[in-house]
């Protein structure tokens, strides 16, 4: 088990990776990536039972994570490489031609750690249910995790999946919603207000819990451990995790403006001055 300070150090390096990757190609999605850095760091460096050194698509005996909001690929790629799935130098190829690190994650280029393509929103929960059902059929005591954007919940397929999982007692599934309240055109309340996300999942029959401080490492680790303790009890688990888009870089924080734009040279320097280099830049 990693301690919180160690995880925070890793998170700082992951944030450096994110802004450097997006800056290098002047495209990508830094806002959501920075907001979910604690979550993915905690998951891959503490929570998941996984084998990063010998990736196998079937993941037998391993926990599995599916990134449903694929546009936050920078944080996913950084965490995958930093946890040993592939060489960190490959982060240099992000979004460039002939790269395995496509704009949105894909299995198509054989990148270790990715088990489904995502980007077109709303599909990951269904995929995770399928993987969770297979794990049950295979007699495994493992857990399937997902991450979704809150804006992504506007896709209809999410609610087909949300209906299916409790009805069929898919209780080896933990779906986390990144509740940052922002989407491309503005706040989620302005674009298409969803009311209470927690109440909606409760009404569908999920076990729902909240991580109030999704950018506080201890809160995220404790929250995910609590979520794990809720599995195996007949219900799927939904974690509503409150984060701030752009967290960790003051001028990107708390706004939808940095959903999908890249920092300039000066902005990169300003961002990096706020993020300690802990593991060595790629």
């Amino acid at each position, binding site marked *: 088990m990693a301690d919180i300070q160690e995880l925070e150090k890793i998170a700082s390096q992951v944030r450096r990776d994110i802004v450097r990757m997006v800056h290098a190609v002047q495209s990508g999605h830094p806002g959501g990536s920075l907001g979910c850095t604690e979550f993915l760091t905690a998951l891959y460096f503490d929570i998941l039972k996984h084998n990063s050194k010998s990736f196998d698509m079937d993941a037998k005996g391993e926990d599995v994570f599916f990134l449903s909001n694929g546009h936050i690929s920078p944080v996913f790629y950084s965490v995958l490489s930093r946890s040993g799935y592939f060489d960190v130098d490959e982060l240099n190829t992000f979004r460039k031609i002939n790269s395995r690190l496509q704009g949105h994650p894909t299995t198509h280029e054989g990148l270790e750690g990715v088990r489904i393509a995502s980007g077109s929103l709303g*599909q990951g929960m269904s995929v995770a249910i399928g993987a969770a059902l297979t794990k049950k059929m295979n007699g495994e005591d493992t857990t399937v995790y997902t991450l979704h954007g809150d804006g992504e919940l506007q896709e209809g397929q999410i609610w087909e999946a949300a209906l299916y999982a409790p009805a069929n007692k898919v209780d080896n599934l933990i779906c986390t919603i990144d509740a940052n309240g922002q989407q491309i055109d503005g706040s989620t309340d302005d674009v298409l207000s969803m009311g209470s996300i927690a109440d909606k999942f409760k009404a569908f029959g999920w076990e729902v819990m909240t991580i109030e401080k999704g950018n506080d490492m201890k809160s995220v680790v404790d929250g995910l451990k609590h979520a794990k303790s809720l599995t195996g009890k007949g219900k799927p688990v939904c974690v509503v995790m409150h984060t701030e888009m752009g967290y960790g870089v003051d001028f990107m924080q708390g706004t939808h403006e940095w959903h999908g734009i890249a920092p300039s040279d000066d902005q990169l320097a300003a961002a990096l001055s706020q993020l300690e280099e802990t593991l060595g830049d790629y």
Partner: protein
Amino acid sequence: MKKYTDQGSKDTRSGFGAGLSELGKTNENVVALCADLTGSLKMGDFKKAHPDRFFQVGIAEANMMGIAAGMTVGGKIPFTGTFANFSTGRVYDQIRQSIAYSDKNVKICASHAGLTLGEDGATHQILEDIGLMKMLPGMTVINPCDYNQTKAATIAIAEHHGPVYLRFGRPKVANFTPEDQKFEIGKAVMLNEGTDVTIIATGHLVWKAIEAGEALAEQNISAEIINIHTIKPLDDEAILKSVAKTGCVVTAEEHQMNGGLGDSVSNLLAREMPTPQEYVAVNDSFGESGKPEDLMVKYGLSTQNIVEAAKKAMGRK
């Protein structure tokens, strides 16, 4: 000329059901998902024999495609079952991203394809599904012609690693394929050799092509009849070899002219061997309610239409 006999008409969807039941016994990794159409898809026997490997997802086809994709992680071979319309057009993006682009070993099994769905009308009579599916990189597209061939195809696709679209239908049609005929994905079946015109048919139009061949023989026209059950990958070699001999071709299918088997054949011929071609297919139109056979006549998919198309193609040599 070889004579084919109807061993007793059956629906192709029942061939799928029988094939799936057999897979249930022989391959423990095969699982089945259905979106509230278990009876229509003839999946009842599988469900009864293997309740732990059958998943009722309700009227939620997008979720079904996603669940199927996810089930492959861990080694299952999911077969999804619903009508062709809801298997393709309704869930195109789910298939594109979660199955095709993600290289998932999912078998998309689609019944009630085309006009012969009949009375339910155009909302359910998809005539674009072959085109939609064949455009996806890596997707195999199969449209068998009768009960025996559909059963054999169902069993064969479980052994093939990769996404497959298997298309079949609702009505009872002539069952003439030998019960023990091996199904080879991507391999054309030569039904009758001939010298004057090549007739390439798929699905329900194969039996009509055989009938057309008999009618043409009575008029001293020698037609070569080929059953293309696999539209993708297409058996280029068989088609080119036949067309090199006959010099003209008719394609016949229960599908739009745009995007169907005829398109695939003309694409091949344009590149390799430009040849006069006539199409027996639906010409840029939706279907409508009616008895299947009446619809086939109204929309130009009858035996007589194939006969006329063959003569027209020969006239263009």
